[in-house]
């Protein structure tokens, strides 16, 4: 049985009122969603609240969820929107600055978040270059290589068709290659 088929069976159970089925459905994604939220709001407590809110919102509106898009991409979108809402709220209310360093004040930016992780020099360099690219290209790379999403799932998240996803991914890699080739530090990067 494929993952999608399992999801469909669980969705039927949930729609008929089985709450434990909902926990079974969402548990494989909780940690990934949490990490996404942390990468955006940079606070694990806030991120946990966001994931909890997102999962509750998901449960509330599950009757309207259509199984064409995967459960993960659906919840991912809710988490991203809630994280953006929180960041906007914080910005408006100036409750607390997101980061003291102005370079790190970004929204929905995995690249900067990596600065705080222990990473190899090459990964750090690659992330630095990805950080210079437009958001659409950064996102498509993240969805494909970090989230390991299919073209269809990426298309659903980016509100475009699969052809656009493929073209965007290709261009993203072209730009990235160009950025590395232009840079002195990038010498020898493409040698196997």
């Amino acid at each position, binding site marked *: 049985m494929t993952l999608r088929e399992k999801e469909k069976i669980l969705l039927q159970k949930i729609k008929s009122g089985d709450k434990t089925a909902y926990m079974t459905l969402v548990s494989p994604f909780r940690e990934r969603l*949490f990490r996404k939220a*942390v*990468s955006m709001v940079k606070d694990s407590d806030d991120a946990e609240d966001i994931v*909890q809110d997102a999962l509750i919102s998901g449960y509330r509106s599950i*009757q309207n969820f259509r199984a064409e898009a995967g459960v993960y991409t659906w919840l991912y979108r809710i988490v991203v929107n809630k994280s953006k809402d929180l960041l906007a709220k914080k910005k408006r209310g100036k409750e607390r600055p997101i980061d003291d360093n102005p370079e790190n004040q970004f929204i929905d930016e995995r690249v900067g978040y990596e600065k705080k992780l222990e990473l190899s020099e*090459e990964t750090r360099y690659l992330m630095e270059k990805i950080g210079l690219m437009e958001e659409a290209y950064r996102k498509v790379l993240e969805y494909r290589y*970090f989230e390991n999403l299919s073209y269809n799932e990426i298309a659903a998240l980016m509100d475009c068709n699969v052809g656009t996803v493929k*073209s965007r991914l290709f261009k993203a*890699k072209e730009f990235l290659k160009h950025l590395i080739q232009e840079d002195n530090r990038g010498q020898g990067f493409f040698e196997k």
Partner: protein
Amino acid sequence: MNQMWIKIQSFLGIESTEEQVLTAKLHMAYGEIRKAEAKRPSLSRDFDLRLVNQLQSIPMEQKTNPVWQSRRLQYAMSFVLLFGMAFVLTQRNASHNSKTEESAGVVGNTRNFQDTNTSVDVSDSYRKRILLNELKSQSGSIPALQSMERYYRETGRLNAAEEMESLRISLK
């Protein structure tokens, strides 16, 4: 040209060696980030318990039909459609009633009669001869030519009327 090449390459999934290396390194880099993130604080242990407790008191929203399935909207759309059809029909009728001069297809927008020749080419003697032979073989040719001549005179196409007249005279 470059754009087209990019599209073709992306469509066919062609990757140069450099791109293959880049793809591999992207996989490695993001994989490394995933691993590093996994070491960072994760959800608290009682997260599931809290969530289950909260779900107990959360009602599930009823399935809402998409907007286009709303009965009100359907009625409104039907009304707009009927109104539109009625408007178009009224306008058509109104334009039929408007009295324009009989044109026989030769009236321009200015309602001035255009005195143009018919499509009958009688200048060519060979074709004229064939035409005359054909007309001679038909018993009703002369009355028909007379009535056409009269029609063209009445509608102001004098050149055409003269053509009919010359044909009629030639038949005699």
